[in-house]
Each structure stands twice: as C-alpha cells, then as structure tokens.
C-alpha cells in the first residue's frame, strides 16, 4: 500500500507575490511542462452598509481539510494529465488587497492545467472546512458565505 502523505496547504498570513514567484521559478527545471495555470483569491474591500471589509480572518478545521485536500488531489491527478499541483490557503487575518488562496497547476498541454485549476478552485471553496470572518472598518464583523 502506498503511503498516504498529507501535504500542508495552510500558511499563516497573506500569500506574497514573492512566494508565487519562487513557486513559478522552481518549475523552470521541469522541461516537460508547457503550460501553467494559476488562480489567486484576493480579499475584496466589499461595501457592507456604510462600512467596508477591512480584511478576512480565516480559520479551518485543519486536520479534516488536509484529509479532504488529499482526496481532491488524488481525484484531480486521476482525471487530468498534470505534471504538478500546488495549493496554499491563508489562515489568520488577511487585509483587503492581499492574497489568501494560491492554486497552481502545470501540464504538458494547456487544457489539462486550465481545467484542473478551475475544478480545484471550485472544490476547494465547496469542500474544504475553512471559514472566513469579514472584519469591517468599524471592527464589527460578519461571517462570509461562499456563493
């Protein structure tokens, strides 16, 4: 039986542009890759009444999320001919304008990377036990709900 290796997807705080660049750079040595697809979730300063969203505070049921992410990862690799897949999600308070989700897929031809990336984003939002609390400019808050 193959060892079931849970990979951590959680990072404390926002995901920096440098982290993304470093991840892209690491793929320059993988010369069978022809296409990368990247999705970034950025915290929006939505207007809520006369307040604005200043940031979102993320919490997760980490153990279950990593189990679930393992399943999703296996299913996506089964379905698409991918070379690589990377997922990072923030925990803690992420200010508006900062990045809280980074999904990165790579493949030989573009269709696989693009479709896998789209499907991953949908499944992450629907299936991972993560909660976002929107902190408003007056320090009140409301719980985010995914559409």
């Amino acid at each position: 039986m193959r060892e079931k290796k849970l990979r951590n997807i959680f990072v404390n705080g926002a995901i920096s542009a440098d982290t993304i660049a470093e991840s892209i750079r690491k793929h320059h040595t993988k010369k069978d890759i022809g296409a990368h697809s990247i999705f970034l979730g950025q915290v929006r300063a939505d207007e809520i009444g006369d307040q604005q969203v200043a940031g979102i505070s993320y919490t997760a049921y980490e153990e279950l999320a990593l189990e679930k992410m393992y399943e999703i990862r296996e299913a996506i690799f089964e379905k698409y001919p991918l070379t690589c897949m990377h997922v990072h999600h923030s925990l803690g308070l992420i200010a508006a304008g900062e990045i809280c989700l980074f999904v990165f897929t790579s493949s030989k031809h573009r269709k696989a990377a693009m479709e896998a990336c789209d499907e991953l984003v949908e499944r992450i939002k629907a299936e991972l036990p993560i909660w976002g609390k929107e902190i408003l400019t007056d320090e009140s808050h409301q719980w985010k709900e995914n559409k």
Partner: protein
Amino acid sequence: MNIKILLFGRLTELLGQSVLHMEDVSDTNTLAQRLSSQYPGLAQIKYQVAVNQEIIHGNKALTDGMTVALMPPFSGG
C-alpha cells in the same frame, strides 16, 4: 465516556467557545439535541457533522474518546 466537540465559524460565537466536552452521549443526534436545548440559536444554523474527521450523514453512534465537529457552511478561498 467522554466526547470532544469541536466548533467552527459562527458556532464558536454562538456557543462562546471552540471546544466542548460531553459525557454519556450515545449518538450524534442526541448530542445535537442536547446542544440545541442549551443554545437555542443553534437550531437556526445549518451545519454539517464530522466524527473523527469524517463527515457523516444521518445519525452515528458514539463511543468514548470520539471527536465530533460541528461545521457551518464553508467559506474558504
């Protein structure tokens, strides 16, 4: 017999804590009913239940040492 209950999202607010313990509770339905009578707001909130890191549908028998998680709708990403 001791069951650990993990709360997430808005449930941590409603119940004022993120971890609870409950003695002598035979199944997840009984657990939910007891919490609802203690915290009336709970009945208005939709949530999924996981037992030992596995999401369950319907009722599930509990034994000593199990962990039950109550999870309102996800909002990651």
